[in-house]
């Protein structure tokens, strides 16, 4: 089974109205080639699940500026003033989620769990409209799983089977998003032969990856 496709073939899979997960933390570890191609394609009304909305001139940040999202589920928008403007003027919906809660909701989505109980957000506006559950006398919020139609992630080395190695702090949300979408596309810095990544160093198993877009290296 050949998983290697072109950027164009990858982008053709993303249609108006879809929910996409995008790896990266303020752009570090984000699949920039795929995101740039999405800006060019101009698909609209997407729902974004990502740690943040990056910077106006970078990755998902450019897509925000290009008004491609109707909804953004993120933990931080402070580095992209355009997100705040769209939120304040009612052009787009922004759902701010504590970072650790966002990570767990994505993990739940990929791991078949019905939700997670977290103490984060108790006594704040984050608890609004959420179910509270007391365990051993301590209050928790029930936070529900997140899934996406498509996850766009970035790996440093990806073998032709789809096994992924992430470099340094580029790991962030990529491995958990790789498990939480119907279709997973990894943008590889480098595509290597099967066997070139020692199984000890595989950080996302090939079974999660549907398609690989090769890097230039």
């Amino acid at each position, binding site marked *: 089974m050949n998983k290697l496709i072109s950027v164009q073939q990858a982008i053709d899979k993303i249609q108006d109205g879809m929910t996409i997960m995008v790896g990266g*933390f*303020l*752009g*570090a*570890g984000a699949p920039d080639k795929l995101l740039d191609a999405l800006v060019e394609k101009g698909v609209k009304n997407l729902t974004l699940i990502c*740690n*943040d909305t990056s*910077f106006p001139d970078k990755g998902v940040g450019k897509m925000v500026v290009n008004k491609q999202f109707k909804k953004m589920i*993120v*933990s*931080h*928008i*402070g*580095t992209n003033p355009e997100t*705040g403007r769209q*939120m*304040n003027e009612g052009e787009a919906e922004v759902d*701010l989620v*504590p*970072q*650790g*809660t*966002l*990570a*767990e909701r*994505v*993990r739940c989505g990929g791991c078949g769990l019905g939700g997670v109980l*977290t*103490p*984060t*957000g*108790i*006594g*704040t*506006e*984050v608890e609004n409209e959420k179910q509270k559950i007391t365990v051993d006398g301590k209050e928790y919020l029930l936070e529900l799983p997140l899934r996406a139609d498509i996850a766009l992630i970035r790996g*440093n080395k990806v073998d032709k089977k789809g096994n992924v190695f*992430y*470099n*340094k*702090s*580029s*790991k*962030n*949300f*990529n*491995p*958990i998003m790789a498990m939480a979408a119907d279709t997973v596309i990894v943008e590889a810095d480098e595509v290597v032969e099967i066997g070139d990544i020692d199984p000890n160093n595989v950080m996302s198993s090939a079974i999660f990856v549907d398609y690989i877009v090769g890097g230039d290296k």
Partner: protein
Amino acid sequence: MAMDKKQIKAVIAKRVAQELNDGDVVNLGIGLPTLVANYIPNDIDVTFQSENGFLGLGPAPEAGKEDPDLVNAGGMPVTILEGGSFFDSAVSFGIIRGGHVDATVLGALQVDEKGNLANWKIPGKMVPGMGGAMDLVVGANRVIIAMQHTQKGNHKILKECTLPLTAKSQVNLIITEMAVMEVTDKGLVLKELGPEASIEDVKAATGAELIIPENVGKFGL
């Protein structure tokens, strides 16, 4: 002689550093708290966590040696020290909520005598999002607020926060250029005075009741 802004930040960061112990795992917020790393005593070993996914956070790299795959939680290029480790965001916040972080040092818009903290939102004005702050404040074993005592003369230490909360009753210690204050069941206890502050100065600059013990210490420049 009044301290300038740089001295104020240095005084606060230096005093916060004295709160850390050998072997501690510490997460420093963006801004003033980052400076604390410059004042860790040489005889103790402190490991810094970067919530985007690693332990062993080191200083900024030399010019030209930046690696786009190695950034801190503010997206700035950094280094990782020997003995460090990388992990994904779920593990990173597992470390935070799971009680594996001994202390977090954060700034505040407002903090109150019950240990409530507001530092993520000014409705209608500034809504950057909470990022990892809510998890850090709930999860870290000790929450230290490091900030200037007032904002343009306005009180930031209050009887009760008026801005949306980051977390309820989680703050343990407040360190400013004027004072060290501990949040206790009875209220806010003045532990130490800053280099240029008197008890009356601190009272006037604080919007909460202060409990003044018989002996109030002093910290220096």
